[in-house]
């Protein structure tokens, strides 16, 4: 069984980091199980495999992580994504990059820490390439990646209006949140691996 985090972090069997990862074997195995359940779902009724991979490519690109973008980009191509999706995802991510986490707090003492910033609006050609349902998911994904404290019920209404079900929104949320975790574990382990004697 391939472990995606180990593969992307360059952790080889028998290495010191492999041994350390084995001290948290449940976490290691269930991070992989999370990946499997999100990308090899038992049901595609609420979010298709292609939609999930497209969102993953967008998240990887927003983080500017070459290893993640290559991994999910290959998976999206192999899954038979429509021509034009990869280009649209790259263009949309390029136009929407930012510096997170930013956002506003509930009005009160924390308002002094508010860091307002942009919400993402896909360009017309990217929207046309991926369709309105996925475009809405991308705009929500951008908020989750860069400014999650700006969350509001109106964001969820936008997803419902674009045709996502309640369960579909739970899937998108888990997907983007899991990727936020996976990308950071890989990035952190790569730094540590490179810093080990």
């Amino acid at each position, binding site marked *: 069984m391939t472990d995606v985090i180990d593969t992307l972090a360059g952790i080889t069997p028998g290495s010191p980091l492999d041994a350390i990862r084995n001290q*948290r074997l449940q976490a290691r195995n269930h991070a992989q*199980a999370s990946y499997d359940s999100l990308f090899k779902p038992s049901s595609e009724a609420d979010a298709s495999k292609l939609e999930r991979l497209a969102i993953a490519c967008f998240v990887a690109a927003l983080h500017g992580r070459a290893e993640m973008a290559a991994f999910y980009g290959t998976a999206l191509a192999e899954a038979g994504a429509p021509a034009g999706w990869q280009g649209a995802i790259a263009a949309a991510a390029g136009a929407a990059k930012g510096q997170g986490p930013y956002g506003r707090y*509930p009005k009160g003492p924390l308002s002094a820490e508010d860091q307002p910033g942009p919400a993402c609006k896909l360009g017309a050609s990217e929207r046309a390439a991926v369709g309105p349902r996925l475009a809405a998911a991308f705009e929500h994904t951008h908020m989750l990646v860069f400014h999650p404290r700006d969350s509001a*019920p109106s964001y969820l209404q936008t997803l419902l209006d674009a045709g996502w079900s309640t369960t579909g929104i739970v899937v998108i949320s888990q997907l983007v949140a899991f990727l*936020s975790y996976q990308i950071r*574990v890989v990035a952190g382990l790569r730094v540590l691996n490179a810093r080990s004697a």
Partner: protein
Amino acid sequence: MTDKVLDPPPHIEPVVFTRDMLDWLPWLEPMAEQDLTPRHMAGLVDPARAKSAYFRLLVRDPEVLEARTKTDKDIFYNPEAGLPRAERELAAAATSRSNGCIYCASVHARFAATYSKRTDDVDRLLDKGVGVDLDARWNAIVAASVALTATPIAFGAAHVDALRKVGLDDAAIVDVINAASFFNWANRLMLSLGEPAAPEKK
């Protein structure tokens, strides 16, 4: 299907970071308790979580909830080697403070204070934010967690060196990476699917 956004009942919105016990009100319909099948109960892992609106909403995808929960428990509760529990909780609290998740910060600040007995330092992190000066070891853990939380990720060799300098071995550094990364998962669910509610004023 008549899926809709929920209008939370009247409640007090917490407007500061706190160690108080908060409630959490969903913006989407959780599953009803009586509709939970054995597959959903497996996803909840702890049967008691059937009482929680948060977990009954997430259990709409039971497989990923089960895997997420088991990842969480091992990162934070596994007593073998690595970072002391108090400092795993510190990384979770610092990550939540940085992302701005008042609910998650409240839970993990309580745990950090309980396990470390450094209640004042935990409260200063909540009040003043992630730039606060605690001590060399906690500063290094907070800084590493915040760097991992930034997008693009700002964690680099200098953070590893700083953690080693204050006494963390590589197993402990992996725990910091796991704990901060995991709260970048948890914060996004808590923030985007509902909102915290403060206890009624006495």
